[in-house]
């Protein structure tokens, strides 16, 4: 992991309160990135915000030295980030955590399941799986039509089903409803989203193997402060989301 300054090459609002940053960054580090890893972002140099913000890596283009982040304006920190303009330097710890271990997996058809701000890391995952000739089907859920992003991008890589909580776009309901209705055939699933969604997915797909990416409030982001823990399967010890995760095999953790 490194601490480095990237430069915002392009910033764009791609859905309601949802910002995409394309960051110019040293390409040697980009080549090492696994899908599912994140960056730990410093809001600014002032002391007002003492904690960095974890944001998943949504895409990597080593040829163009570009790294893509997609984040939702939620509280003060992400609102400040959203205001940064092109050419602004931005201080990152990169790469953070462990991604989806796709190099070690022999699979033919992957189901990717994402909810809200859990969708971004699945895009780079889908790209990487596709490169390995794995068939990719994606199910992504959002609150409402205004929140939907990256449907077309996922469609270029395989099937993509979209659900919204209020039915204003695609299927009405949760990602699990879409899965129920579409009897998708797959070897393994990869999920990222809020904990209630992950719990529902794990329950619904209890006969399948899967990897999930967890969210937890972080301090250091590097494994030193014990802020971001999640109990192991039998709840006898904790794992650190920032260091042992954020991606875990479903059998590793109790959520």
């Amino acid at each position: 992991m490194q601490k480095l300054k990237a430069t915002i090459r392009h910033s764009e609002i791609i859905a309601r309160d949802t910002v995409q940053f394309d960051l110019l960054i040293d390409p040697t580090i980009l080549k090492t990135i696994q899908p599912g890893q994140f960056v730990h972002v410093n809001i600014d140099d002032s002391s007002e915000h003492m904690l960095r913000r974890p944001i998943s890596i949504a895409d990597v283009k080593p040829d163009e030295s570009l790294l893509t982040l997609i984040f939702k304006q939620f509280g003060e920190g992400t609102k400040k980030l959203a205001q940064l303009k092109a050419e602004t330097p931005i201080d990152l710890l990169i790469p953070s955590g462990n991604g989806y271990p796709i190099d070690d997996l022999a699979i033919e058809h992957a189901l990717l399941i994402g909810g809200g701000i859990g969708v971004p890391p699945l895009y780079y995952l889908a790209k990487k799986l596709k490169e390995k000739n794995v068939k990719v089907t994606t199910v992504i859920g959002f609150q409402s039509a205004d929140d939907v992003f990256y449907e077309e991008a996922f469609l270029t890589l395989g099937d993509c089903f979209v659900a919204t909580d209020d039915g204003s776009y695609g299927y009405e309901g949760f990602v699990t409803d879409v899965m129920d209705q579409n009897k998708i055939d797959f070897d393994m699933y990869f999920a990222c989203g809020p904990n209630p969604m992950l719990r529902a997915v794990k329950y619904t797909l209890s006969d399948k193997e899967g990897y999930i990416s967890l969210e937890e409030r972080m301090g250091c982001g590097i494994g030193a402060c014990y802020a971001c823990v999640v109990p192991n399967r039998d709840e006898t010890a904790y794992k650190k989301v920032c260091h042992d995760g954020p991606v875990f095999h479903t059998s590793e953790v109790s959520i």
Partner: protein
Amino acid sequence: MSLDVQLPGLNLKNPIMPASGCFSFGREYSQFYDLSELGAVIIKAATKHQRLGNKTPRVAETKSGMLNAIGLQNPGVSSIIADELPFLSQFQTSVIANVAGSTVEEYEHVARSFKDTSLIHAIELNISCPNVKEGGVQFGTDPELAFEVTRRVKEQSNVPVYVKLSPNVSDIVEIAQAVEKAGADGLSMINTLTGMKIDLHKKQPLLANQVGGLSGPAIKPVAIRMIYQVYQAVDIPIIGMGGVLTPEDVLEFLLAGASAVAIGTANFKNPMICKEIIDALPETLSSYGFSSVKEAIGGAHNG
């Protein structure tokens, strides 16, 4: 520019050390710089047995600070001695073990356990944990309990003991004098102020533990005040901490009366902070007219 400071048990090449709980046992930060650069390392609190700590969320950001309620998660003292200290011993730096417990007996046990290793140079006795036996009072808020736990840990230790004081007290001087009388070799101050943040969406305290410890630049004025007052009332050295972010902050702690300075929360914002401050310290000191760290210690008391 000489940065070295000699304290009981600690021959520091510079006064900078990461604060307990913010640096684990050093492994993670060793990817960012050579830990031999540090004056010392204060490791995460050790208890008798492994502790799992509190439920999450365990941290929350506040203005110029943060709250934490980790809850002393640690693998237990024997595992720390066996698995963590050998890693740290490869670096040319002093190691200070932070000792915690819920009863005087647990404190004694942990301190005694550290006798078995030559890899620590001092103990930081953390008396800010809630005392379960006495009904949740902190050892650090009652001068008599503070005296007693210090005296008994001193008896069990073969290295100097620095007692880490809680700032959540009406009279910090009274506590400092009590632990000095009990034989403390030094003081470490301050630990976190007790605070809370409410989650407006959930309409309940944000931290699972409800309350947490406030740290970071927000609390620096309280730390400076307490160190200044205690420096005038005791004869043992003080390791100062609470909100350090810049080399100027380090100088402020030295002038207030600290002989060394620990950095906690700022490591999270900038994992290179300790090294960067060590590198910048000579220039900062000389720009304010000092030719050594020692010269600055207590410098605000000469007026």
